[in-house]
């Protein structure tokens, strides 16, 4: 418990630092937000009124704490780009709200694919020491480090979308309209994210299992009459999964970052795409929130993995 508490404090500290950095970084940029919302023809009184409304007349430190307090209360601020005038403010929360599920589902489907394929594959590989599989997965792992994710996405689009016509490229189906259609479309971007990670995870699990197979307890288990199957699944796999859990945790962080690019390739209206377009149009309130959000997801996953690790492996003491 003490350990979890300590980790929790680190997590909150990191989040605090990132939020300060994300907020202050955008304060040093030249350019006036007020004129970009109201246009150049607005009267000085109106500009002053909006500036007060947005809290821009106060010093940055005061604004940071006001902003942080608002965020904690669930008020994420307003978008500069989508707010046309003072009566039609576009809340960031509303902007993000319907995009978040797209990214989350993309990450979930990718993760399911990775776990569902790589673990059986890794076990099979370790059991058979199959040379063909060895070569194939070796090539995929090697290639996945050389093929950028967006090019892989384009290749997937070409192969499955244009040649095999399994999905319509760019024909995104909204989850609100047709959920199974949405998942069907999501399968292909998820595959682009998952394939390199599957190769890496399977290889990692296989190496981990081969190491475990040489351990003394395996010989002991055999000498006590355990079947190969039992030794494999009850003893070796359980121990071999330890490092894989950490590895999968790191992969979640990479999926979240990787989805920024893949959403662009498959024109998925998720938060990654929103982040890119907000950066291009310098819509900083949205960028700040998204950065904070993505960072939170990433470090929270690390935190969960850390705890999960202790639950699976009681040998790691509390100290």
């Amino acid at each position, binding site marked *: 418990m003490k350990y979890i508490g300590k980790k929790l404090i680190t997590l909150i500290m*990191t989040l605090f*630092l*990132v939020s300060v950095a*994300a907020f202050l*970084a*955008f304060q*040093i*940029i030249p350019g006036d937000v007020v004129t970009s919302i109201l246009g150049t023809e607005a009267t000085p009184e109106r500009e002053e009124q909006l500036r007060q409304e947005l809290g821009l007349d106060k010093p940055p430190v005061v604004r940071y704490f006001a902003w942080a307090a608002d965020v904690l209360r669930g008020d994420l601020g307003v978008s500069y780009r989508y707010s046309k005038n003072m009566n039609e403010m576009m809340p960031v929360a509303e902007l993000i709200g319907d995009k978040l599920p797209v990214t989350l589902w993309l990450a979930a489907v990718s993760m399911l694919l990775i776990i569902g394929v790589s673990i059986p594959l890794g076990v099979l590989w370790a059991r058979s020491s199959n040379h063909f599989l060895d070569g194939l997965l070796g090539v995929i792992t*090697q*290639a996945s*480090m*050389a*093929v*950028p*994710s*967006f*090019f892989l996405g*384009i*290749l997937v*689009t*070409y192969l499955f*979308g*244009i040649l095999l016509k399994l999905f319509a*490229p760019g024909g995104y189906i909204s989850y609100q309209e047709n959920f199974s259609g949405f998942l069907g479309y999501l399968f292909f971007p998820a595959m682009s994210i998952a394939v390199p990670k599957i190769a890496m995870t399977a290889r990692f699990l296989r190496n981990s299992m081969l190491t475990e197979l040489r351990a003394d307890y395996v010989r002991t288990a055999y000498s006590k009459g355990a079947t190969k199957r039992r030794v494999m699944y009850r003893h070796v796999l359980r121990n071999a999964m330890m490092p894989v859990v950490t590895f999968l945790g790191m992969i979640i*962080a*990479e999926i*979240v*970052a990787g989805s*920024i*690019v893949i959403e*662009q*390739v498959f024109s998925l209206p998720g938060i990654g795409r929103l*982040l*890119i377009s907000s*950066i*291009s149009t*310098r819509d*900083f309130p949205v*960028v700040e929130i998204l*950065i904070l959000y*993505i*960072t939170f997801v*990433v*470090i929270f996953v*690390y935190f969960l993995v850390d705890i999960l690790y202790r639950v699976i492996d009681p040998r790691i003491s509390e100290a």
Partner: protein
Amino acid sequence: MKRIRSFNESISGNKYLAAGLIMTGLALVIGILGLFWTPYSTTAMSAAEKFAPPSIRHLFGTDNFGRDIFSRVMKGMGTTIGISALVVFFSGTAGILLGAITGYFGGLLDEAVMRLTDAVNGFPSILMALVIISILGNGKHNVIISLGIVFIPSFVRIVRSEFIRLRDADYIRRARLMGVGRLRILFVHILPNIFSVFWVSVMIGFNNAILAESGMSYLGIGVQPPDASLGKMLSDAQGYLQSAPWYALAPGLAIVWIVLGFSLFSEGVRRCGE
């Protein structure tokens, strides 16, 4: 038996090295040449030759404006390689300076720098680069600056651990006893001895820089037209995947070629060094 195995291993190491050298060499020659000369102008449009498939006249075909794709890939390779080399140069230099000082002297500065690199480490690097680019704005100079900053921690960590390993080595103690100055110990006595390790991280860093640069250009927040860039070409080509698949394949394969060549090369260096 052992001798035969090591013999085989050195051969396969040489194979990696040879394949890597050929691929990297070709990429460098084509890329650097592309910055100064291309068979066709990279901007000349030709309405008559829109989407010409690959042929002798146009090796990789032409794009939606009738521009020669091979020429554009040449120039794009040059731009991408040049940017990545500068990124690695800046972040590597900063990494050596910070890593040397923190590793050798330790203390409060070391603590501060390590906490910072730890914090950055957990953070997806593309996100960091995006934040910096959104502050600085688009363009190739800002790509170099943002990636240059993002890549510093990885170099600091490696250089630092090597300096920690060597700072108490006998020959360094001896040099200290003989009254050699600190700067000379850092950069004349220790630095040359970490180059084999540093070199590997430079090569990994270079590949990551290539992927990051082309990724940012693909997203439209990196190199801007009229500069040719492989990533930007890919994003333009994506809309014509059905009618002109070669348009997307050419820049994509060029990226794969550079990265694969360089990783084979570094793998070869590593295996031969062992």
